[in-house]
């Protein structure tokens, strides 16, 4: 009977000791691999929340914050292309996953470590005037991004009788550096704001 008890104890001790010694190997097997690889892009207003500017005036500064979160499994090199369009110009397409044909006004480069987020402060102001010959048209002149005056001329915005105003679309496209092609490619993500350019 005593021998039987020793046998059981021996088995338990053997298994526990074997598991303990094998724990570094077991740890490798148990670690759950990351299955979802993506980048999150979001835009915040001046209060770091969803309070966005809507009615804008000439020369007024509008602070915005772009938030980019990297969940790709490794660090990533991103580029934000700042673009502005009127109601008829090319826009990025969420269904076809294509970027706008418009050339960017400015580019912002940054690198985000894996599982980290980066918040980019962007100060925006607008310079525009009513067309001297056509009061139904607004002539865009410059967009000032982080203190740099970027020309948007000859973009014009027609009066929108339905929404009653001159509406311009400011948007930020996310591009990512592709190691294989050694070039940036559109990451199929953008955030945009429709703005009523008040006169």
């Amino acid at each position, binding site marked *: 009977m005593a*021998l*039987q008890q*020793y*046998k059981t104890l*021996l*088995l338990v*001790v*053997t*298994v526990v*000791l*074997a*598991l303990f*010694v*094998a*724990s*570094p*190997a077991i740890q*490798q097997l148990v670690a759950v691999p990351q299955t979802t690889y993506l980048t999150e892009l979001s835009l915040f207003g001046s209060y770091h929340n969803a309070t966005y500017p809507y009615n804008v005036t000439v020369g007024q500064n509008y602070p915005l914050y772009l938030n980019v979160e990297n969940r790709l499994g*490794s*660090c990533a*090199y991103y580029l934000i292309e700042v673009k502005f369009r009127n109601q008829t110009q090319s826009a990025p397409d969420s269904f076809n996953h294509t970027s706008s044909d418009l050339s960017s*006004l*400015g*580019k*912002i*480069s*940054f*690198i985000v*470590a*894996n599982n*980290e987020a*980066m918040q980019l402060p962007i100060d925006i102001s607008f310079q525009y005037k009513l067309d001297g010959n056509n009061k139904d048209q607004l002539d865009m002149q410059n967009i000032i*991004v*982080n203190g*740099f*005056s*970027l*020309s948007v001329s000859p973009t014009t915005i027609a009066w929108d009788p339905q929404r009653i105003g001159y509406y311009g679309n400011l948007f930020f496209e996310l591009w990512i*550096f592709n*190691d294989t092609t*050694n070039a940036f490619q559109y990451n199929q993500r953008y955030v945009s704001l429709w703005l009523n350019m008040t006169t």
Partner: protein
Amino acid sequence: MIKGLKTFVITIVILFITTALFASPVFADQNSAQTAIISAQNNLKTCYDAAKQAQTAGANVDPLMATLNDAAGLLSEAQLAYASNDYNSAYNYATQSQSKLNGFTSQASALQQNAINNDNQNFITLVSSVIGSVAILCVGIAAWVTLNRKQRKT
């Protein structure tokens, strides 16, 4: 007296010319600004690749990220300045961006090498743990069999 004045005037002129030659601000044209930006972009790509390789090898690249982002921020300023036709600022920012990354690749290589060494050590630990646990199991089973035989005899 006149000779002394002449020497003074000559000294002033020489000083003025020297200052004008060596202390004048850099006035960059569009081409040199563009070249500096392209160079800074390529430099950043190279350093990013080095950091990514180090990370793939298992290195903690957090200290490198801050430097990379400083350089990327300066490159962004350069690109915005270029877009606003301020070629002088664009050139200066692009040059600063490149300077930020001096010695970066060697730092990344050192981290990568450390990570490879750690990886090798981890592998040895892993193999040792597997061999050790198998050995313990074998000894345990052998002891159990021996005890079983003794029990049968009694």
